[in-house]
């Protein structure tokens, strides 16, 4: 065996490890959201939550291309981004239940999970609200020469917000290492995006000097490949990029959005779920490529489910913050 073959074998092993990590992460997100929905139906969760089910390949494909020190900003539909960037489910669930052990000591809840340890600058409940923050983080990276890249996740609804274009323009002018990742899941709450989005989505990047491309957001390998390329470019100083991911949310806008027929058909939902499920299709590919097999993958699924149940248990039994804590953390 030549050294080259050995090398390529090692590479292949590494690559397989990576695919398996991506698989696990996608399953984690799905199982996490399953639990969230259950917490909601069991009336154990305060308020509402926006599930990421169906969109797992976007967060996982992107974050796989990032270093732990790279930054992300997230949205109201943010659990997937947090998990993909490496957050631990127990502290996430604790946050969703408003417990002190949560990432934000219970102050943020589902829509505001933030975590310096994984470069997570925070989810944002203002649509488009984190575009400035992500771009500013990229400015820091450039000025301080740290080589970090910032990824700004947002739904296609944020294309309605002018601030997005303001910061894209700035990012292009200053060649900042920021990737704007648009998760086009076709709907903004209860309205199809074609009713709220004129013109051409990709052109909304290029018009402001930002390199733009689109990708099948249900294909984790495609997302990862695009992300790797764009993140590398950004890190090398080539400036910002805009990546539009075609995806779909399986559930309602939030856990309480049950009757959806007035804005989208069951058939449409069914088609995405059966034909374009990111986990199902990735599973098939892994087996087809002989990188794994059904039982291994099934095992991971069971493992993850147990992990999520334990995390939920942890959160349920964790104590609430005390009332006095309401006045803490207003000022640093």
């Amino acid at each position, binding site marked *: 065996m030549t050294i080259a073959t050995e090398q390529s074998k090692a590479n292949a092993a590494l690559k397989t490890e990576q695919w398996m990590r991506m698989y696990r992460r996608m399953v984690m997100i799905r199982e996490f959201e399953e639990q969230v929905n259950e917490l909601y139906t069991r009336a154990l969760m*305060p308020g509402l939550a926006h599930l990421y089910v169906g969109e797992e390949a976007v967060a996982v494909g992107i974050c796989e291309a990032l270093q732990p020190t790279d930054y992300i900003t997230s949205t109201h539909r943010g659990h997937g981004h947090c998990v993909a960037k490496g957050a631990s489910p127990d502290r996430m669930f604790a946050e969703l239940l408003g417990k002190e052990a949560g990432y934000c000591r219970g102050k943020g809840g589902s829509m505001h999970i933030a975590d310096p340890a994984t470069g997570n600058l925070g989810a944002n409940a203002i649509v488009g609200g984190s575009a400035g923050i992500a771009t500013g983080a990229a400015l820091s990276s450039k000025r301080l020469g740290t080589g970090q890249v910032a990824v700004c996740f947002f739904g296609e609804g944020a294309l309605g917000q002018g601030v997005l274009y303001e910061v894209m323009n700035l990012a292009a002018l200053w060649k900042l290492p920021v990737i704007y990742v648009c998760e086009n899941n076709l709907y903004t709450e209860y309205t199809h995006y074609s009713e709220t989005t004129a013109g051409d989505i990709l052109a909304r990047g290029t018009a402001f000097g930002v390199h733009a491309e689109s990708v099948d957001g249900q294909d984790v390998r495609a997302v990862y490949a695009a992300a790797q390329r764009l993140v590398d470019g950004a890190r090398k100083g080539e400036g910002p990029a805009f990546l539009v991911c075609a995806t779909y949310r399986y559930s309602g806008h939030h856990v309480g959005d049950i009757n959806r027929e007035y804005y989208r058909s069951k058939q449409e939902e069914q088609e995405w779920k059966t034909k374009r499920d990111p986990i199902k299709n990735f599973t098939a590919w892994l087996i087809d490529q002989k990188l794994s097999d059904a039982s291994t993958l099934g095992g991971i699924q069971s493992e993850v489910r147990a992990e999520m149940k334990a995390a939920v248990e942890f959160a349920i039994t964790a104590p609430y913050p005390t009332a006095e804590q309401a006045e803490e953390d207003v000022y640093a």
Partner: protein
Amino acid sequence: MPEVATRELTFAQAIREALAEEMRRDSRVCIFGEDVAEAGTPFKVLSGLVEEFGRERVMDTPISEAGFTGMGVGAAMTGLRPVVDIMFGDFLTLTMDQLVNQAAKVHYMSGGTWKVPMVLRTTLGATRRSAAQHSQSLHAWLSHVPGLKVVMPSTPYDAKGLLKTAIRDENPVVFFEDKMMYKQKGPVPEEEYTIPFGAADVKRKGEDITIVATSSMVQVALGAADLLEKIGVDAEVIDPRTTWPLDEKTLIESAKKTSRAMVVDEGYGRYGVTGEIASVIAEGAFYNLEAPVKRMGAMHVPIPFSPPLEDVTVPTEQEVFEAARTLCGKG
């Protein structure tokens, strides 16, 4: 309330009825905002309107609060009577330039030639477990701005009558609805009526202490008044209904009569509505007051998500009761 045939309507139904009546009366009235048409807003306040008035008059917008608020200004100047829907009061942050530098100033800057008969409906209020960006009560900002009128209904009856007045007003009006109140019921007359701006409503007559309360805090104050009654304190609860114009006279006269006053408002306690109203009373009733005017507002913190934290940030019945009792020297 006038003595006429009434029904029980929810706050949301009262709002919807006001809009429907005004849209029938005046074809220039139209509505736009996010998910206002088939969805009828996330709070379902507008359900049914698009079916009656069509998508030409009930228009879904992109998520562009600044843009479509600005369009409301221009549309109002040129012949429409737009009702702009801003889903959460927290998103007013995005509309401030359009509201404050444009809507509020057009009439004045143009020397009285252009008018902006626009209504901006939005929400306020915490305790919905929605955290810091979906729970604010930012009406103080708008009350600070000359050129705007600011309306804060506290009952279905007031909501309907004030909204009809708002739509007929020739000026930009910001209309705040407490989102926790949408399902609250109350009597609403069958017959048409409107309620003038700048007329405070005495929600409960009393002799011992004046409690001025706005919007979401009116029910809290009335609840506290019931508790006070049990300890022999007869509270007068007054709802200004509009923070601008403000019915100073009614507030001052009440405080002169009772000699003690409190102001309860869900906005932040600092640099907000309570400061203004307390000052008006402290100045106007100075020589009659037995004690300083007591102010209660939201705690000076971003609204936290966690229920046990969120619950302590907003004045409660019990807290209002206790503060009133102390103020009356019965504590």
